[in-house]
């Protein structure tokens, strides 16, 4: 299993992501944003979290126009998997590889804390190790995580089983930290090979750090 991790100027979770996937036995490499191709033997591309290009203009906007993203698109179009975490999710919406957009958090604060998430659909690789309605504890750390999509788009997400995770409390009841439409924390594309979420599973790999629930998520992609 080979994992390529995209690095833009301002990305800051690439090495955590590398640690997480290597812990699961993957071979990893860092993909610099100016590269124009991704090796054929890379199975999964991960767009790691951070503040690509300082979040200038809009989070993920400038990164979405960088050379590597054309290669990431081609990788996804060939049916291989892509995962965007936090800023990576923002980049994937900006490239329209995932629908919707990530707005400034409703209460305008940067939120950094552990949060519970409820599995909305496990009929995809990413959450295949879970059952629907399972509750997991994963950190969130974002300023622009307020997921927006119009009503037609939302309906299409549910109709196609593309909603992955909802923010919730420890009992699985809705608890919305950032104003996201329907408390949505993560989605996938229609083909279910491109995944995006605001929470950071790569930061939930060790019990000693508060949670190891991220292992089961990332394992689904292995």
């Amino acid at each position, binding site marked *: 299993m080979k994992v390529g991790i995209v690095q833009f100027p301002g990305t800051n979770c690439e090495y955590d992501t590398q640690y997480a996937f290597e812990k699961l036995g993957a071979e990893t490499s860092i993909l610099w944003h100016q590269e124009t191709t991704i090796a054929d033997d890379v199975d999964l591309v991960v767009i790691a979290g951070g503040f690509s290009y300082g979040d200038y*203009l*809009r989070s993920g*906007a*400038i990164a979405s*126009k960088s050379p590597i993203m054309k290669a990431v698109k081609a990788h996804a179009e060939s049916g291989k998997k892509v995962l965007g975490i936090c800023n990576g999710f923002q980049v994937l*919406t*900006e490239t329209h590889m995932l*629908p*919707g*957009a990530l*707005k*400034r*958090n*409703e*209460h*305008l604060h940067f939120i950094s804390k552990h949060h519970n998430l409820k599995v909305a659909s496990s009929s995809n690789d990413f959450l295949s190790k879970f059952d629907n309605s399972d509750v997991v504890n994963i950190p969130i750390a974002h300023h622009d995580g*307020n997921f*927006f*999509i119009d009503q037609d788009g939302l309906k299409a997400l549910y109709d196609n089983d593309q909603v992955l995770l909802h923010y919730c409390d420890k009992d699985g009841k809705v608890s919305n930290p950032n*104003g996201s439409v329907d408390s949505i924390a993560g989605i996938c594309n229609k083909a279910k090979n491109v995944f995006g979420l605001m929470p950071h599973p790569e930061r939930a790999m060790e019990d000693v750090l508060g949670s190891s629930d991220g292992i089961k998520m990332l394992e689904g992609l292995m």
Partner: protein
Amino acid sequence: MTAIINISLKNGVLDSQGKAVHHALDSLHFENVEDVRVGRQVIMKLTQEDEAKALEEVTQMCEDLLANTVIEDYTIELVK
């Protein structure tokens, strides 16, 4: 020629920053404010002197990069 581009959240998309500013204005006793929207302005100098061509080009810039049309609207003003 100069292009002045104003970008703001679409009507119907909640503008949290606008709401916060409105709230702050309320607390300063500016009571005649009905609604506040916060946007972004991009000003660029163009070498293109043909107005129609400039408008076409700047529109493409807005669609491709400057605005996220999923949530934002934009207006373009050209000044000679």
